């Protein structure tokens, strides 16, 4: 899995691509902790190129969402689709997040 991040003031965008499995879910959590430590409260996760999430990866999304909430913000999801959406829906995790069709929509919602 590849992770790219950009930080703008109190919001950070994190682009996840490939597979979020047991090995990569830890990287996602530590990357996010670092962004929050740098002042981010709202994290926008772009899932456009994310093809797979396991139950460990799903747990990482919940853990990161809890961190963002504790920092006074939220984890926002962009382009939740395909197999990843199927896994989120089955475990009824989808309603716990604000989801958007584009990065612009997600950014406007917190500006």
């Amino acid at each position, binding site marked *: 899995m590849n992770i790219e991040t950009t930080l703008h003031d109190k919001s950070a965008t994190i682009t996840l691509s490939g597979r979020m*499995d047991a090995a990569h879910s830890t990287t996602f959590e530590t990357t996010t902790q670092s962004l929050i430590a740098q002042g981010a409260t709202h994290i926008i996760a772009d899932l456009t190129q994310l093809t*797979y999430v*396991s*139950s460990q990866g799903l747990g990482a999304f919940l853990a990161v969402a809890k961190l963002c909430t504790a920092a006074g913000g939220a984890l926002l999801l962009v382009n939740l689709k395909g197999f990843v959406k199927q896994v989120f829906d*089955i475990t*009824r995790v989808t309603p716990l997040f604000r989801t958007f069709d584009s990065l612009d929509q997600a950014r406007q919602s917190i500006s």
Partner: protein
Amino acid sequence: MTTFHTAALRENLPHVLASVRQILSPAALPESLLLKLDLIVEEVFLNIARHAYPTDQPGPVAIACAPTPTGGVSVEFTDHGTPFDPIAAPPIDLDVPLAQRRIGGMGIVLLKSFTSETRYTRDNNTNRLSFQIPPE
């Protein structure tokens, strides 16, 4: 069924996933079914790596898989560790707000959703978990 053996160690997960896909490659199964299979194999293998054997004495796990005549996949995991029935785990509450939502426990929800013919047996100090991923 084609069987391979490996040590029940978390770091062997990529090898396990690649081996299962390699065994099934002649069946040319759809990627959407293989993603479900990846998820369930990851879940079951990591459970065995975590619970079956003492941390300092990792033991063996045998993984057998085969395509089914109807276009699905049949899988069986066998280990000789501590008795552990993942199907018997109590259900977690999925209808609570984020603050109360547990981080773990979702693997069993996905196992029950993605598999059929799921069966756990314990005999002669052996855990055997078998299941099928049905065709879509």
